């Protein structure tokens, strides 16, 4: 079969089983768009800004486990995609980004809409390619998908000069079934000896805790994690990225850990004598002050990326491998072995944890006559019966969603953890809804974040992706305001906007339904009404308590046991703001 470069790209995507291509046309990709026009296998989703394309594809990948695919033009199209590429990179999300480039003969001449995409993206991709020969196009695309989806996943950029996709040059096409690369062989199985050592430490621990992260979700190892945790009867905490890998409503789950983790999770980490980190990377938002991190604990760390091991926290038993086969092997050893955890020690440990739990750190003022953001999330959980896929933006609302919406299954909590990208939530919800048209999808956001990619409301209408936007509108960049309250004597420097659009009218202008809610008693009925509108995107603007803060909080540079708790329910919220 002889095909031109543009046809090769589309045929390759088809062979990879790509359903959706999120993109935006431009000069350097016109040949490609002509090839898109002439096929029906891959559905192109036209976004309104390239950042939206990357976030939508990224969220599609997070929700489905399949790689997200993006097509952007050269120059500004490519640079607009960079934030989304970096977002995926920080959270290890498999993505393939095809960017147009100016034609080979003019590369380097500062041609119209030329940027060095390979250079710009180098620090925020797993790998990138510049295709210089149409004969290598198919193999390069195959490599891109292979690299993006194996080992520790990540985004891969394929930069394609315009002349490579020219309709005038046809070459024989055969999509390779597989590729092997001498320089890339990610480890799968963990080292058997290390796994055995880990099991010995595990069964002998007095105050153990399982600390699992996004790697369990990326590695589709949720079932194994649940089995492993229940066999041991140990407490388990999840990172922000790992929520849903273990059921959030299970009694062994002690909540999220880290900066806005629960009191019991952070205290249990601090006091533990053994932590087993599974697909988690000891992010600074998790560890707090490194020199005081888990001072009494030995550390077992399972990770597919050797560079994650002992990067910030020294590990006693490193296990390099995919989480799923390693956990399977550990479960086998536990089943075969006679050694069981010390019942007495475990009972004492759980007693201690339950005392920390009794602090009830997530309690808030339920009597307030203002809408509490926590209450909105709790009601969202009730109305969706905990079955929705929730995307979020970045800030206070993100933390509240993580704290008050327990996720019982993986791939239901879609947020930008590592990069913390405002503007992620709305395009992400569109990407998820395309993949799961029959599942409720809600985007929890705030009035600042939502404005960063608000233009995608138009995409949501075009592709009929009925999502529910839960806008926790406190008229502040809430998380910035919170830090300014705590660390800058309440000097609220530019953390509010003097003008905020009328979101109801805005939603209507984009062809959707808008609602504004100002009283707590209207929260539940409004949510019910919104979710009853099955085929409409609904923007619900909740006017929430302006002064609410996220608690508990480990302030920057402090240790796990040094948490700021809500002083007494309600008291902080009554404070007058300057």
């Amino acid at each position, binding site marked *: 079969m002889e095909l031109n470069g543009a046809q090769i790209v589309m045929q390759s995507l088809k062979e990879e089983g790509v359903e959706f291509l999120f993109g935006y046309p431009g000069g350097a990709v016109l040949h490609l768009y002509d090839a898109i026009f002439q096929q029906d296998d891959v559905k192109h989703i036209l976004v309104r800004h390239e950042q939206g394309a990357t976030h939508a594809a990224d969220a599609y990948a997070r929700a489905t486990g399949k790689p997200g695919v993006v097509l952007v033009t050269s120059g500004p199209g490519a640079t607009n995609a960079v934030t989304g590429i970096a977002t995926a990179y920080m959270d290890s999300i498999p993505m393939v980004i095809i960017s147009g480039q100016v034609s080979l003969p003019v590369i380097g001449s500062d041609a119209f809409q030329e940027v060095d995409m*390979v*250079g710009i993206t*180098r*620090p925020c991709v*797993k*790998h990138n390619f*510049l295709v210089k020969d149409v004969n290598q196009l198919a193999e390069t695309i195959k490599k891109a998908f292979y*690299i993006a989806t194996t080992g520790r996943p990540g985004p891969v950029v394929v930069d394609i000069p315009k002349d490579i996709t020219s309709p005038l040059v046809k070459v024989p096409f055969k999509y390779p079934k597989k590729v092997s*690369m*001498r*320089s*890339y062989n990610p480890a799968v199985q963990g080292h058997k000896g290390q796994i055995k050592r880990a099991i010995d430490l595990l069964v002998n621990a007095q105050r153990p805790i399982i600390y699992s992260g996004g790697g369990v979700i990326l590695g589709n190892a949720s079932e194994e994690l649940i089995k492993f945790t229940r066999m041991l009867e140990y407490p388990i905490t999840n990172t922000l990225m790992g929520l849903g890998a273990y059921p959030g409503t299970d009694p062994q789950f002690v909540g999220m850990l880290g900066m806005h983790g629960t009191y019991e999770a952070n205290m249990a980490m601090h006091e533990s004598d053994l932590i087993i980190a599974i697909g988690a990377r000891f992010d600074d938002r998790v560890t707090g002050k490194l020199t005081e991190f888990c001072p009494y604990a030995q550390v077992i760390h399972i990770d597919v*990326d*050797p*560079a994650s*091991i*002992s*990067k910030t926290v*020294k590990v006693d038993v490193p296990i390099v491998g995919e989480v799923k086969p390693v956990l399977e092997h550990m479960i086998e050893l536990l089943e075969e072995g006679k050694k069981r955890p010390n019942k007495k020690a475990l009972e004492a440990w759980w007693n201690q944890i339950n005392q920390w739990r009794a602090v009830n750190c997530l309690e808030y003022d339920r009597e307030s006559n203002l809408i509490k953001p926590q209450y909105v999330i709790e009601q969202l959980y009730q109305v969706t019966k905990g079955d929705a896929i929730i995307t979020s933006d970045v800030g206070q609302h993100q933390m509240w969603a993580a704290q008050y919406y327990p996720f019982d299954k993986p791939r239901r909590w879609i947020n930008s953890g590592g990069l913390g990208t405002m503007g992620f939530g709305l395009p992400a919800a569109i990407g998820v809804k395309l993949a799961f048209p029959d599942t409720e999808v809600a985007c929890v956001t705030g009035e600042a974040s939502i404005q960063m990619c608000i233009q995608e409301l138009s995409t949501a209408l075009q592709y009929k992706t009925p999502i529910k936007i839960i806008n926790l509108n406190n008229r502040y960049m809430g998380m910035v305001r919170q830090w300014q309250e705590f660390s800058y004597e309440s000097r609220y420097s530019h953390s509010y906007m003097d003008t905020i659009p009328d979101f109801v009218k805005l939603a209507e202008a984009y062809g959707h339904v808008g609602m504004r809610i100002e009283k707590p008693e209207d929260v539940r009925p409004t949510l019910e009404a919104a979710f009853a509108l099955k085929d409409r995107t609904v923007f619900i603007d909740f006017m929430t308590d302006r002064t609410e803060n996220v608690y508990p909080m480990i302030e920057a540079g402090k240790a796990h046991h040094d948490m700021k708790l809500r002083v007494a329910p309600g008291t902080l919220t009554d404070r007058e703001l300057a």
Partner: protein
Amino acid sequence: MRHMIAILIENESGALSRVAGLFSARGYNIQSLTVAPTEDPSLSRMTLVTCGSEEIIEQITKQLNKLIDVVKLIDLAESVHIERELMLIKVKATEHTREELKRLVDIFRGKIIDVTSTSYVIEMTGSTDKLDAFMSTLDPAHLIEVVRSGPIGISRGEKGLHL
């Protein structure tokens, strides 16, 4: 501590910038970096001298290994190895200094490879320490130009870095 890392890397455009970019992005130190194709033209060998604590060096080797273009690497500091660096020095060689310079070059087993009525070009190879020692014998006022290749290294014995 000083470490010498030898890297086999795909001989492709951009491979060098991936290594250099990694060091600048993560704040690692590069003391010297040399690179040239190997006997297999699809591979380049890079020799990188860096310094840092054991933890930092461990991270550097892991992060280098993570680069898709890196095929294989070793930290030569972990075994007995030989290092050589090449240096070319252009010095003023006037009536008063010509003889003395010639003797010094001989003592250090260097060679004078270009001569004019007023200058010499000296070629010197050896360990970095030896080149430093030679430099310290020269009067800075006589130096016109110094160029050093950065050290390269190879492990002793039968074992080698190859595919």
